[in-house]
């Protein structure tokens, strides 16, 4: 009786919700529900382009509102939402915008892919928008539990998206591998969160930050263990060596546009969580985590660059190159400075468009069946599709870090941050790895332009003519323009990243 009385005495106040600040999330989540129901209730059947346009409209809406909010936050300061569960700062909105862009471009790429591969339905768009909502929650999370929920929403949708190509057994294989290893990594992350809670008595980032600043924790060993386990969990999600083994198989087996979405939006969202937790909450413990991140970064750039060289499958090559990019982004985190964080964020911005464009080109070149991905299938591409070959070359040069592309400025940003932080060794290793990595991109470019056919070797011609649908052309075009525009005039993008630094805000009582 006493217990019941005590329970009923508790008044649980409804948290105040700033609805407008949550609009990007609402747009995407309501859009995904409505699409799911509309698609089964109405015979839209063959009009699959309608799904893609609808998804693009939702993504554009969420992206525009994110930008509006970004300027609002810049003028009026960041704030917390829903009693401190989410932080609305420039950092979160930067990633909200980035993820919305990735959804927009991926929807354009997926549209014709579904028609070409004779696949059904709206589900892939529904799942993509749900995944994006998970990414938004992850980027804005101000509490480790909220962060975990966001990560799971993102991951579970991605597991299913990987299996979306019903006619290819490799697609199912990729999904199972991703699911098993993803579940494993989530367990690591969750254990890390539990350890951190044990050490600090809270899962809220602000409270953890306060405990650490006042040096209040009685059990610092738990916090260090928590940091290590969370780092492992995040390293799985961003595919950093030695936790990268799933990435090549999953990227190779998944439908090509989905691989692009995984490599861009999912990686950006996971990095958003990693950067926010380590940079804003645990800077005082940086002597503990910086060496670990240093090791991860060095190993990741080296493993990614070197293993990419020996691949004969272009999708696999790009998977390894995306691993090495994750290493470069970790270098920015390793610097543990404002320059390093904004360098990592700029890198993610540039990388998202580069990798989406690259996977867009791969989607087209893969042709019906989505399996013309051998390097030989690119032999002589410039003769049949000169523009596509040129655009793909630009994306590859950008990934290699050639000047006048966004990739150069991105690499320059993180390496100069490392040098400013006196991490000369990591800077030198990164530059050497970039040189090694350039070889693999050049090999594909050489195949497309100069390689002569030797005897009966497979070429572009024998694999059939490449179809160029409007949607994919627009999607790749956006990425192409962005990559070159940022390469020529990087100031606005650099300022966008610099003005989006993550902050910890005290929760209003």
């Amino acid at each position, binding site marked *: 009786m006493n217990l019941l009385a005590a*329970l*009923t005495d*508790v*008044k*649980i106040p*409804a948290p105040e919700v700033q609805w407008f600040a949550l609009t990007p999330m609402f747009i995407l989540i309501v859009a995904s*529900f409505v699409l*799911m*129901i509309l698609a*089964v*209730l109405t015979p839209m059947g063959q009009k699959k382009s309608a799904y893609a346009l609808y998804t693009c409209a939702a993504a554009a809406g969420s992206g525009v509102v994110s930008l509006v909010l970004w300027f609002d936050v810049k003028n009026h300061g960041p704030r917390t939402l829903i009693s401190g569960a989410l932080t609305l700062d420039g950092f979160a909105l930067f990633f909200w915008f980035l993820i919305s862009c990735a959804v927009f471009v991926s929807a354009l790429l997926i549209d014709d892919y579904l028609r070409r591969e004779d696949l059904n339905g709206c589900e892939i768009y529904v799942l993509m928008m749900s995944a994006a909502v998970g990414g938004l929650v992850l980027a804005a999370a101000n509490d480790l539990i909220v962060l975990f929920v966001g990560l799971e929403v993102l991951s579970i949708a991605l597991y299913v998206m990987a299996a979306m190509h019903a006619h290819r057994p490799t697609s199912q294989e990729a999904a199972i591998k991703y699911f098993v290893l993803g579940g494993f990594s989530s367990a690591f992350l969750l254990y890390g969160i539990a350890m951190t809670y044990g050490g600090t008595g809270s899962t809220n980032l602000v409270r953890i930050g306060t405990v650490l600043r006042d040096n209040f924790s*009685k*059990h610092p060993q738990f916090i260090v263990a928590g940091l290590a386990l969370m780092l492992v969990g995040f390293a799985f999600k961003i595919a950093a060596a030695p936790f990268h083994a799933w990435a090549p198989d999953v990227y190779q087996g998944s439908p090509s546009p989905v691989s692009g979405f995984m490599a861009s939006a999912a990686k950006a969202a996971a990095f958003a969580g990693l950067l926010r937790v380590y940079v804003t909450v645990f800077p005082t413990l940086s002597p503990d985590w910086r060496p670990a991140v240093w090791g991860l970064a060095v190993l990741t750039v080296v493993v990614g660059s070197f293993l990419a060289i020996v691949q004969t499958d272009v999708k696999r090559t790009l998977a390894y190159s995306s691993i090495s990019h994750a290493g470069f982004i970790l270098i920015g985190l390793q610097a543990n400075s404002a320059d390093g964080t904004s360098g990592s964020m700029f890198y993610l911005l540039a990388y998202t468009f580069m990798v989406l464009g690259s996977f867009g080109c791969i989607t087209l070149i893969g042709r019906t069946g989505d399996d013309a991905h051998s390097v030989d299938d690119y032999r002589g591409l410039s003769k049949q599709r000169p523009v596509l070959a040129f655009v793909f070359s630009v994306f590859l040069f950008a990934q290699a870090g050639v000047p006048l592309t966004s990739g150069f400025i991105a690499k320059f940003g993180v390496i100069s941050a490392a040098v400013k932080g006196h991490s000369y060794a990591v800077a030198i290793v990164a530059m050497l790895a970039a040189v090694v990595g350039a070889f693999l991109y050049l090999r594909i470019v050489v195949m497309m332009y100069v390689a002569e056919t030797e005897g009966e070797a497979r070429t572009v011609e024998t694999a059939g003519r490449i179809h160029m649908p409007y949607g994919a052309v627009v999607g790749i075009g956006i990425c192409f323009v962005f990559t070159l525009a940022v390469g020529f005039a990087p100031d606005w993008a650099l300022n966008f990243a610099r003005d989006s630094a993550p902050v910890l805000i005290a929760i209003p009582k």
Partner: protein
Amino acid sequence: MSLSGFHRSYLNVVWFIGAAFIIVCLMMGIARTLRPSRPNRQKQMAYESGVDPVGTGWSQSQVRYYFFALLFVMFDVEAVFIFPWAIQLETYGVFGLVEMFIFIIILTLGLLYAWKKGVLRWV
């Protein structure tokens, strides 16, 4: 070495595990020593809700049951969230009521989707 209060509270878990282990051993042990043991063929058959078992234990089941199991999980989870909410309905107020309706509507959308996809039809 003395234990801190934090660790000592974890000691309760150890006692609990030990107690559970001992109680189970006692119950099984006493029952085993007291009861008569006269096995026969009938008694050693696998228990199949009262009917005679057919086939081997490793028979395959219909994949259709899988969909029903998934839909069941949906309602199961719904119940898990609704019970604590129902007990505390008054303290949550209108906000809680609206929240729970949104939750139920979203789950119903899932059911609607499954229904329209023809999952509920037994082919």
